[in-house]
């Protein structure tokens, strides 16, 4: 379990994380979402004790992570797959990490097999693709068989097969009762992996809830109508209490169900070419809810 309580982190004058509180529970894959620059990596670094909070606290399993003298048995973390020494082999990199925590060499072979890098174990990491480095980082996180795992943008650079493998791995780790916390700026990624979401923007909490709840919250159900009598029907829909956006070839209707829109068309003798209910995708829900929280909105200046 990860607990973040009233966490604020300022670098100089810039506030990266602002009074952030949330809990990540074991047994689930929890997605940590936010636009670029929202403060996700900063939060993960504070949880890992790499950066000291300006105020507030973060605990793992009830204690600050820095209170452990060795970390791999408590939290496995992958912050940035590029943060390896290119001159070492994958096996040497993992052996040094394992040894620092009193973990035997056999475990190095096990995690290399787990991530599918056995054949590349003795190649220098500098020649690895980003996807292979992500696998190496995941192997390092698994070394200590920890109850809590954190990954920052783990999908970056992976091929489709790798993405499928990693989703499967995350779900399996959560099913074993572990706490799995993944950050991403891509909502679509979470749709297939996470059960719970923590969403932040500009360092502040936007939502912390099950993925389904979040998706529904963002969903303003919308009915798409195509009709040759757009102007007349718009008036009828508005009179019935709907909000109507007129697009060149269709009307986007909110506030009325498809049944009510159909009944209104029938009652007003309006000819319909299309009547569709659109459920907003998770991506749209995310965009809608985080709008105004993005640090660098395109065309904002």
């Amino acid at each position, binding site marked *: 379990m990860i607990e973040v309580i009233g966490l604020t982190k300022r670098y100089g004058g810039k506030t990266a994380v602002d009074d952030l509180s949330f809990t990540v529970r*074991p047994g689930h894959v929890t997605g940590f979402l936010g636009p670029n620059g929202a403060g996700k990596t900063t939060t993960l*670094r504070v949880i*890992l*004790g*790499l*950066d*000291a909070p300006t105020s507030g606290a973060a605990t793992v399993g009830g204690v600050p*992570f*820095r*209170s*452990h*003298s*060795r*970390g*791999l*048995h408590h*939290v496995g*973390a992958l*912050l*940035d797959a*590029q*943060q*390896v*020494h*290119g*001159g*070492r*082999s994958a096996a*040497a*990199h993992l*052996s*040094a*990490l394992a*040894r*620092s*925590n*009193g*973990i035997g060499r056999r475990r190095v072979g096990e995690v290399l*097999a*787990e*991530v*599918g*890098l056995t*054949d*590349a174990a003795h190649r220098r990491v500098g020649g690895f693709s980003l996807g*292979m480095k992500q696998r190496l980082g995941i192997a*390092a996180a698994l070394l*200590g*068989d920890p*109850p809590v795992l954190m990954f920052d943008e783990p999908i970056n650079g992976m091929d489709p*097969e*790798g993405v*499928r*493998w990693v989703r*499967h791995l995350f779900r*399996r780790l959560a*099913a*074993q*009762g*572990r706490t799995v916390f993944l950050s991403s700026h891509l909502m679509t990624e979470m749709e297939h992996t996470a059960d719970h979401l923590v969403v932040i923007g500009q360092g502040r909490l936007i939502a912390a809830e099950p993925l389904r709840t979040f998706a529904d919250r963002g969903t303003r159900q919308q009915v798409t109508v195509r009709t040759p009598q757009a102007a007349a029907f718009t008036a009828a829909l508005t009179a019935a209490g709907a909000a109507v956006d007129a697009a060149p070839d269709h009307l986007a209707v909110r506030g009325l169900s498809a049944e009510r829109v159909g009944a209104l068309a029938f009652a007003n003798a309006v000819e319909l070419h299309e009547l569709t209910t659109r459920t907003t995708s998770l991506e749209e829900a995310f965009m809608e809810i985080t709008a105004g929280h993005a640090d660098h909105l395109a065309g904002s200046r």
Partner: protein
Amino acid sequence: MTTSLHPAPPVPARTRAAAPRARFTDLVAAEWIKLWSLRSTPWTLGLATLFVLGAAALAAKADYDNFPFYEPETQRDHMFSLSDAFPQEGYLTLMIVAVSLGALSVVSEYGSGLIRTTTAAVPARGATVLAKAVVTAGVWTATGIVIAFGSFAVSQAILAGRDAAVSLSDPVSIRAVAASALLAPVCALIGLCLGVLIRHAATTMVTGIFLLLMLPTMFSSDKRWSAELSNLMPGVAWNRLTTGWMPPPRPDYFPATITESWLVLAAWPLLLLIPALLTIRRRDV
């Protein structure tokens, strides 16, 4: 690259083995693996050794060739024998290599970002720095011993041909070999501590080389305060310890004592470790 998709047998989270006890020796072993898993390490140590031995051989060869033209008094005293064993060009280069490699053990981790992985694996940051210091000191002391004995042996073997070699049983020879063996680990530890304090690779190297090689040349030997500051430099202390012959006392000459020179060599790494250990605890990684 192939990947297994078959699920491993589920491991209940509650019944996992307890974490093994945190031992400092494991950290030392981890740093040892890190150092020797880089191809550059044996190359650098090997080439530095060959360079210093070569410099000593050349210095001895020059005196061997010129020996017939020396004054009888110079031939009898052969004061040049000990300085041929520990030539400036060889040992100043060794200082540069040692300070750089010592610094690299830290700054390469900051440069690549590996330091974050290291720190997440071992939140006890001071222990990691101490483990790096133990490995650095050990490897460079071993290398320093090989180099010091080697350059002494090579140079004296050549000078023996003119019957101008000094014996290792001479107390001054022993002192000079010991000081020369310690010069490399002292410089490597200075580099390591500067690396922790500065973190940036190029800045650390420039600072280390300036401190060890350039700064000592800026003092004058005939002003007391300046000479005494100069005596605090590791290179100057090493020079004093490898010199057998001292000019008679003069009012405008302020050499360090032998004891002071040993203390200077010991104090640099030990005193720099304190701010290094204090800052690494406090600073964000």
